[in-house]
């Protein structure tokens, strides 16, 4: 099946089968099994794992093997999970369609002519097509939630710093966050439980207790206040998406929540803010790919030519574009007008959410303005591609937890509902998403790959 979807870049079949046999042998002792015993988990190929390559979807790291496991991988292994393979992505997680992979695009299992969203498109497609029950992705501007929405599954971006980034190859360090992809909210909660929490190896990871996410799922939404931002509804949205999201809000209302109109006036400035901050951080983070310590080296007699030629040949079009954009924004004479300005607007975006959360427990809006688009449709217009993320990027800028849960369909393609919570309140996000999911049938629909 994966020959048509192309969700995986590498699969560790023999060790996965060995591990599965070991867990099978222990099934008799069911009470002593760890939470993910024997479950195959697919890993976005930007998270370092021993035993399999870590390519970041880039020629510059083709064939490179990490000498260590990321903290999330260590935790998965301790929980009994089987790291079955590494999934396709936009190169260095830069993209919204998984078309920017140096190893070819991933296709949407619902319609092979369409993109699965990105950048965690391989992880989302693998879960959507029932190749694996669980996967990890990363979300810097929507890269877990968007592909979850486009492929009809659940994707959660935790609060910034909830999950350790140790061993996650850095794209934009102030925004990057690892998150679970799963078929149901309960499965996503289970996976988050395993990966969340303080890690001494990531000094930015939050030193806060991790609540029992699964335990509070059945508590319902009675008395919960859910805000709908007036700026996020109506104009600019595909009509079916607009209708599905508003219908989902009414389902939550019928389950006992109250709906309140809120305002996020600076939301329209989130995309330009992000496209200054993320490329700036990326231009610094990607300086390490210079042909010295790992990956590709283009041999030249002179070291400066080696740096430039290695990077010129190793990076793809979108990565180069963002390195150029970020380097420009940070260069002398432009720093204050671009980078500093964007950091200030980031404060305003955060403040909008803080004000909204003064009167509501959750914010509800679409994940994306449309359903999955066709391969090639936006590939030659970077700006149109960037605007795919207008509803997900504000959540990263504010560092909040956000989930995508299936809430409808248009022309046979899934639509995602986004629920956004207060910092470190993943429990409420998951509880409301679970309540919604269990009141509807959308999560039961599966693509018919023939």
């Amino acid at each position, binding site marked *: 099946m994966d020959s048509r979807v192309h969700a995986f870049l590498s699969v560790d079949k023999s060790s996965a089968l060995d591990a599965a046999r070991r867990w099978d042998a222990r099934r008799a002792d069911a009470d002593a099994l760890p939470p993910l015993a024997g479950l195959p988990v697919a890993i976005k190929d930007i998270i370092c794992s021993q035993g399999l390559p870590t390519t970041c979807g880039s020629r510059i790291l083709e064939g490179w*093997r990490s000498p260590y496991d990321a903290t999330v991988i260590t935790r998965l292994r301790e929980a009994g999970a089987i790291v079955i393979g590494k999934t396709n992505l936009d190169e260095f997680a830069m993209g919204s369609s998984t078309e920017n992979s140096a190893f070819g695009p991933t296709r949407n299992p619902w319609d092979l002519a369409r993109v699965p969203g990105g950048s965690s498109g391989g992880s989302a497609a693998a879960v959507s097509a029932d190749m694996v029950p669980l996967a990890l992705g990363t979300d810097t501007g929507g890269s877990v939630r968007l592909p979850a929405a486009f492929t009809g599954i659940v994707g959660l971006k935790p609060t910034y710093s909830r999950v350790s980034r140790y061993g996650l190859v850095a794209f934009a360090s102030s925004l990057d966050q690892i998150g679970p992809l799963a078929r149901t909210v309960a499965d996503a909660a289970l996976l988050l439980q395993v990966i969340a929490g303080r890690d001494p190896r990531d000094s*930015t990871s939050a030193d806060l207790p991790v609540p029992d996410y699964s335990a509070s799922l059945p508590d319902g939404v009675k008395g919960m206040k859910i805000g709908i931002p007036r700026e996020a509804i109506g104009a600019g949205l595909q009509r079916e998406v607009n209708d599905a999201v508003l219908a989902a809000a009414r389902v939550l209302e019928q389950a006992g929540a109250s709906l309140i109109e809120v305002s996020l006036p600076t939301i329209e400035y989130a995309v330009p803010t992000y496209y200054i901050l993320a490329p700036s951080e990326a231009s610094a983070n990607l300086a390490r790919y210079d042909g010295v310590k790992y990956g*590709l080296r283009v041999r*030249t*007699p002179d070291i400066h030519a080696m740096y430039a030629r290695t990077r010129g040949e190793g*990076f793809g079009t979108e990565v180069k574009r963002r390195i150029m954009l970020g380097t420009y924004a940070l260069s002398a004479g432009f720093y204050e007008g671009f980078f500093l300005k964007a950091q200030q607007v980031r*404060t305003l975006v*955060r403040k909008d959410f803080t004000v909204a959360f003064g009167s509501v427990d959750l914010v509800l809006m679409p994940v994306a303005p449309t359903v999955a688009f066709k391969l090639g449709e936006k590939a030659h217009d970077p700006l149109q591609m960037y605007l795919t993320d207008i509803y997900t990027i504000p959540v990263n800028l504010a*560092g909040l937890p956000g989930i995508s849960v299936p809430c409808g369909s248009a022309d046979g393609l899934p639509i995602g509902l986004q629920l956004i919570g207060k910092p470190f309140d993943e429990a409420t996000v998951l509880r409301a998403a679970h309540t919604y999911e269990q009141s509807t049938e959308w999560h039961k629909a599966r693509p018919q790959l023939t």
Partner: protein
Amino acid sequence: MSITPSIVNHVARLARLELSPEERERLVHELAAILDHLAKLNELSTTGVEPTSHVIPMTNVFRDDTVGRSLPREAVLEGAPERDGEFFKVPPIIETEPEP
């Protein structure tokens, strides 16, 4: 926003990126279009607004100064494009003087 070929050349040099003539030509137009969109931020007044560099308030994360396990040297060097014993090997950085 006006982006000239010389700006693209300058930024590419800062970023240590070798670009083909076609890539340079394309970037002149693409960067101009993207920067025009980004200039939308100038509609907002940000006088007196503190910049956000990090969303979680954090200062000086301390830990005990204890020796931990580090990666085995051999495992790290295995990924090197070129090595010399225990070292990463690179082309000459400084021209050596000829032997007398």
